[in-house]
Structure formats: C-alpha cells, structure tokens
C-alpha cells in the first residue's frame, strides 16, 4: 500500500495516538514556504507510542513486523521540541512507514517501545545517551556508545565540545 492508503487505514481504525500527516509539498513563493521534499511522515502523540506500534505490528493489512530504527533529532537550538523518529518495515507487504513524535524539551519523557519490539532496546539506549530522552520502562538504561562518565548530551544542537577528558586534551 502506498503512504496515503496506510494513513487512511490508520485513521479509519482510529488508532490511539494518531495526530496528523506530514506530506511533501512544493515551494510556495507567496507564503514564503520553502516547501518540503522527501518522504511523508505520520505524526503520533509520544505518550501513546507503544499502543500505536502494537497496532502497526498486529494489524493484518499493515503487518509491520520489523522495527528498523528509533532515533531522535534536534532540529535547531531554539526549537522547543525534539523529534523522535521511528521507521517500520513490513516484510510481507513490502512497505515502509515513517513515524514522527514531537517531544517538548522541557518534558523529555515518553514510554518505551521495548515491550512491542525487542529491537527498540538498543536504539532507545542510544537516544537516551545522545539526547537525554527518558524512555520510561526501559530495562537497561546504561550508556551504549559513550564512556560511562561522559558529560552532556552530544547530539543536541547546544552541545559544547569538551576541552579535556581524564587529563587528556580534546583539542
């Protein structure tokens, strides 16, 4: 199914958490809109992400058995939201779905999806250490790629590169 069919199926089934769609659009000089190219995304409420993913996995028409990716993105330092992006793949129906959640930086907490897909565990660990997002209910919230005592959240746009670590200069 193409994206519009998937989106219609989701809204007809009244899936919990579905908010809106982000579709590509051409640039518009009159409204000074630079447009949006690329692929479409479904916007989902972060508090209901686990239910949404459960529906996507268990529904017959959608059948998204494979979780490809969970990541986060900090669009810019002034923006008040952090984006959480989920990518799903359906092997039986050969289709993909991109999901976006907007998480306010002042309340960076959302439920974990590890109960739905086991693959989410490591992806969420990486988000936690790189962006400081708190996934509630995650079974193993250790640092994944960074050393255990690394200060700060490196992938945020307002991150300052450290000057030294354990006595060795970082310059």
């Amino acid at each position, binding site marked *: 199914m193409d994206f519009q069919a998937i989106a219609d199926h989701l809204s007809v089934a009244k899936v919990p958490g579905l908010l809106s769609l982000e579709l590509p659009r051409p640039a518009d000089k009159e409204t000074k809109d630079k447009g949006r*190219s*690329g692929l479409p995304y479904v916007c989902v409420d972060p508090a209901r992400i686990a239910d949404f993913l459960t529906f996507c996995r268990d529904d017959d028409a959608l059948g998204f058995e494979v979780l490809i990716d969970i990541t986060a993105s900090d*669009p810019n330092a002034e923006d008040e939201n952090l984006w959480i992006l989920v990518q799903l793949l359906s*092997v039986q129906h050969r289709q993909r779905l991109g999901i976006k959640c907007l998480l306010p930086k002042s309340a960076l907490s959302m439920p974990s999806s590890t109960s739905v*897909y086991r693959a989410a565990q490591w992806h969420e660990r990486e988000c936690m250490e790189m962006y400081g997002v708190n996934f509630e209910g995650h079974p193993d919230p250790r640092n994944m790629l960074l050393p255990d005592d690394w200060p700060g959240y490196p992938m945020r746009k307002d991150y300052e590169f450290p000057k030294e670590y354990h006595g060795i200069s970082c310059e």
Partner: protein
Amino acid sequence: MTSPTQKDHKPSIRPADEARVLPSGEREFFMDVATSDLEINMGPQHPATHGVMRVLLRTDGELVTGAQPHLGYLHRCAEKIGENVEWLQYLPYTDRYDYLSAMNNNLSYSLAVEALMPELEIPRRGTLIRMICAELNRIASHLVAFGTYGLDIGAFTPFFYAFREREWIQALFEKICGARLTYSYIRIGGVFNDAPPGWLQEVSDFCDVFEEKWQEYYDLLIENHIFVQRTANVGVISAEMAYDFGLTGPMLRGSGVDFDLRRDMPYMEYGEAHAAGAFNVPLGTGEKGTVGDCWDRTQVRMVEMKECLGIVRWCLEQIEPGPVIGDVPKVIKVPPGEAYVGIENPRGELGHYLHSDGGKVATRCRVRAPSFVNLAVLEDLMPGTLLADSVAIIGSTDIVIGETDR
C-alpha cells in the same frame, strides 16, 4: 575451603563404597567443590571479535550463562560530524562506517540525498556503474566474512584464498577511483568519473575466473565436515526472533525469510535485473542442521557471492557510453525536507535518515547501521551455548564495529 596447592589441603572425597556405579561400568567419585559463575571479559582486543567489541561473558565452566556486549570502543561521532560538514564533504565519512563495503555506504547516502532532490537526474551509465561497483564490493565483503570466519573457527587456509580474490577486486577499484578501501566514488548524482578503457573487460574476466574459484571455496570450507560440525545447530535464530530483533540481510534470509531489498523494494535498476533473471535470492533451508543456524547464514553469504556475478554480468551487457554524473552544482544545497532510504548492504539494511533545512549542511544525518541491530541478538543467543560456540556465533553475525559504533 583451601586450594589444592596449599599444604594443609584435604580434598573431601566420599569413601569408595559410597560411590555409585554408572551404566558404563565406571565408578563415580564426588568432590564437594563449591563453584560460582566466572565472569570473563572477551575483548575489546581479541582476535575473534571482528574489531573492538567487548562481550562480558558469565560462564559456568564451558557453558555460557550470560553475555552482555559492550560497544563504543570505536565511536567516532559520525552523526555529529554529519551536522557540521557540507553534504559532499560528508561522503568520505560514510566510507568509514562499514569499511568492508564502502561503495554500498556511499550509495546509501547518495540515494538518500537524491531522494531529497527529485529534479536531479542520474544518467543510466552512472546507475549501471554504481550497481557493478556495489556488487563487486558485496563479493569483496563476503570474502572477508568467509575468510575471517574460517580464521575464528580455526581454519587458516580460506583466509589466504579469500584475500587473493579480494586483492583483484581492490585492484579493479583502484583503477576506477584510486583507492583500495575507502572509495568515496559513488557521489551525489552519479559516480565520480568514468571507468578507464579496458576496465569493463577486466571486470568480465574477473567474473569468469571467480565463478570457478567460488566452487573451490565452497567445497573447501562450507562443505567441510569439521566446519559443519562447528556451525550447524549452533546459534539458531527463528523467523519470529529475527523479526523481533529487527534483523535484516543474510541474518534474516538465513532464518528462512524470503526478503531482499534489491528484489522486493528495488532501487536503481535491480528490479529490471531481477525481472531479466540475473539473480536469485538464496535462503537458509536448514540443510545441515536447523533453519537459522550459523551454517545457514554462512551458506547464504556464499551463494550470494555467486548471485552477485549474475548482476554484474547483466549490467555489463546493458551498459552504454554516456555521462556518468548528473548536473550537480559545485556546492550542493539540498531543498528542505526529510527522507529515509534503506538499501541492501552486505550486512543488512543500511539506511540514512537525512533532514535538510535548505542549506549546505545537513540538520540531521542518522545512520541506521545493520551491524548495530544485528549485534543485539547476541544477548539472547549466547546463553546456553558452549564457549567455543560463542566465537562461531559472533562470527556468523558478520559485524563490522565501525558500523556498530559509527
């Protein structure tokens, strides 16, 4: 309790008449020893961990009761770099995550950028050369997987044979782009430069020679009785487990799931190649043991090497003279938007998520690395196996730590 080397050690053995007689006729002796599980560190410097990975093993004698991979020893901040350098300047960094299949990494990134630039046209010759290079790189990568897997198991010979063919492929790549390992050849809009005269003929010669050699390597290692005993019925991943862990690539196909991004969600001209019968997708069938064991995965990789030759030959027939790169400006400014494009890397699905706000520099460059996802399966696969099997299991996942840590 004292150790046997100390002077006042009294071993506690039950008297002989209390010992049982086993069905084989032997007498059973008991020594009251208290044991506890041993925690051993495997890595980060270890000949069999395929790079710098640390696995904390908890073992009860030879039996592994727990395994915890620790990563981050090669974390090179590729995603942060992606937010600070220009679009084309990021291309050499893409080579370096999965350094064994650098062409495929370049391809994944270029396709993702091109998904954001829909008016950019890539000429057909560029696409076909991209496919030839990607498939040759797949062969080279699987050769390393085959050679080093033999090395882990204890077979030294396949390593030298694998590297012999790999040197030829690297010489071919050196002729076309000047580098042996990290090419930065597949660029946004096509490929960097055209193939020198005689290159296509040499690729064709390579295909003919490799086909004979392939059969030798298959009989040397994959059909070898010792190799089969070491890898069959070891590390079995069922299809449900594969889905749950998000596995892709040979890990998924080894468990019997018929899914290959080149055939089922085709990009470039793989769809036409498959329709013309150029390649098939091998699956794990449980021939020597259970479906989804280490032997199946290794066999899938070996047969994939042969199928790559079919794709290369199809491209060589189809190729015609023409330009190799589209009309790309010197400083690329990608229109605002976001896209995720995933391609079939030798290890699984390598995807790039790119977010652009219209400038020269990406706002977010996320790399979905297959080895990172494939590695998570070790936590559930290794407990319950013997220590020697853990090496076989790690080798069969075919991870590259540059990709795991990015």
